[in-house]
């Protein structure tokens, strides 16, 4: 019974969503929108759950003085400062000087910095991975080199390299991507069908 109720709900709702895709009537669109609105509401409550988890984990670390517990203080400080600055009426709102400064001069640079790590990691990953271990690996190596140097001014070689790079991107690369996308599409459809029919039940937890 404990599993039958959620499985029945999943089946009925997913059947409705499948049928709704083919039925353009107003009433069906309204029900679809209603269900989507509920998803948003549940998501907001789940955020509270997430914040509670974050608070609890970090508080316990501070209380037990676990290794690197000081970073937990920084985490909680960051959480509370942004909440207060964004919410307190009269003092905190999105136009607020402090909020804007924290956003533009703390959050933005930090996020941009983390993204910029990718450049260094790509260099080290490429250095490690692009080795001519086999014929196929060599093919991958040369394709990668051509793609990378297509933007480099190489005088008379620039145009042929650019054309080869464009061909690589638009023919074999695209063909492989499309094949993977088709496989993923079918896999997603199969997984959705399994969930709908109650064959895939891992999300319910207890088996």
């Amino acid at each position, binding site marked *: 019974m404990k599993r039958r109720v959620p499985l029945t709900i999943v089946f009925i709702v997913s059947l409705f969503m499948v049928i709704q895709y083919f039925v353009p009537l107003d009433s069906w669109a309204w029900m679809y929108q209603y269900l989507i609105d509920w998803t948003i509401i549940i998501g907001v409550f789940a955020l509270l759950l997430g914040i509670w988890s974050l608070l609890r984990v970090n508080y316990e670390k501070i209380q037990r003085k676990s290794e690197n517990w000081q970073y937990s203080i920084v985490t909680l400080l960051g959480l509370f400062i942004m909440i207060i600055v964004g919410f307190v009426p009269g003092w905190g709102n999105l136009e607020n000087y402090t909020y804007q400064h924290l956003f533009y001069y703390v959050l933005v640079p930090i996020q941009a910095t983390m993204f910029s790590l990718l450049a260094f990691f790509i260099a080290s990953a490429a250095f490690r991975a692009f080795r001519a271990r086999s014929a196929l690996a060599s093919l991958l190596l040369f394709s990668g080199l051509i793609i990378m140097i297509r933007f480099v001014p190489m005088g008379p070689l620039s145009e042929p390299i650019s054309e080869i790079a464009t061909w690589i991107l638009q023919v074999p690369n695209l063909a492989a991507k499309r094949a993977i996308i088709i496989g993923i599409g079918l896999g997603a459809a199969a997984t959705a069908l399994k969930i709908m029919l109650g064959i895939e039940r891992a*999300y319910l937890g207890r088996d």
Partner: protein
Amino acid sequence: MRYKCIIAAAVLFVGLILPQALFAQEDAEVPDSLLAEVQLEPPPQPVVTEGVDRPNDNGHKLTVKWKYPEEGVDLIEGFEVYRSMSPDGEFQLRGQSPADYFEYFDIGGVDKSDPDYMANDEDYYYKIVAIGKNGVSSESEIGGPFQTSGQVFHTGKIPVLIGVVIFAFFTVYFISSAKKGKELYVRPLAGIEAVDEAVGRATEMGKPILYILGIGTAADIATIASFTILGRVAKKVAEYQTDLIVPCYEPIVMSIAQDVVRSAYLEAGRPDQYNDDMVFFVTNAQFAYVAGVNGIMVRERPATNFYLGYFAAESLILAETGNSIGAIQIAGTDQITQIPFFVVACDYTLIGEELYAASAYLGRDPLLLGSLKAEDWAKGILMVVFLIGVLTVAFGWDGIRELVRVNL
């Protein structure tokens, strides 16, 4: 003779030229009314021909069409389209159409509170006004009544319905075959075969296992597939009594993952070893999450990292950091752009649908294996249809292409 010429010239001058020079009036002024009449002639009148309901929608939309003489097109700026609910009622401007386009797609509001609301199955009347380049316009006769209506079934999506039915049929057939005990072969996947080895390695080294579900929501198929694998991994981890760390990006994913891991520990007979802090929320900001997980990796130094789910740009940052600490890494995602990063930085990678198939591999459940077979058959049929379609189009016949076309 000479005198005769002089006399003739003098007569001509006196008779013809002199009177004109003396008595000729200035250029006659054309009266304003006549001028107005000549310059402000209205353009030809449009004729409303039909109002066509757009098919395969919820109604509230109508295409009104009219006729206009070709010679009139150059005389006008364009058309204005007016609508009313009765022929005697007030007509409201709905929009404009260029001079050479004789139809207008009128989209009405869906909600009754919308000032543009256009009800289904009610009469609407239209008139078209041709706006002349001279500023004078001409109005058509009122056309109508026309009605809009919603359709019960979207006929443009029939190919999708056929595809779904065929796929569902194959799924049910192969699941039934599997239930009857038929042996279904599936090719081995290195990434899945390595799960046991990876968990064993962590146990031997006395280091934890890090399992990352990605940055997807609980509604993402990749995340759902990852839950299944997490359950299996958690059960093994419980049996081997290794530590498990599951940092989550999304709160709903966190609560589902907690349930999955708790159930796995219960199934392994070690419910006392489960702790809610194993599965915790970090943040739902992408790079803040990456920073947090990287910190965990560098501090806890897990022996095994699993990256299974939906990943974006952070995939390489995670994988490289994991590589730098010497962890064995098994990754799987359905994001095409991230697969190359996982391939270069991880030891094993599940590409695309292999992630979805992993649950069938790990459990060898006949029901799951059956659906895997159905996928393979569907792919086979698709390949045949593609081939036939490509060949027929190459030889100039669009039949197959039109058959599978989906008109949204």
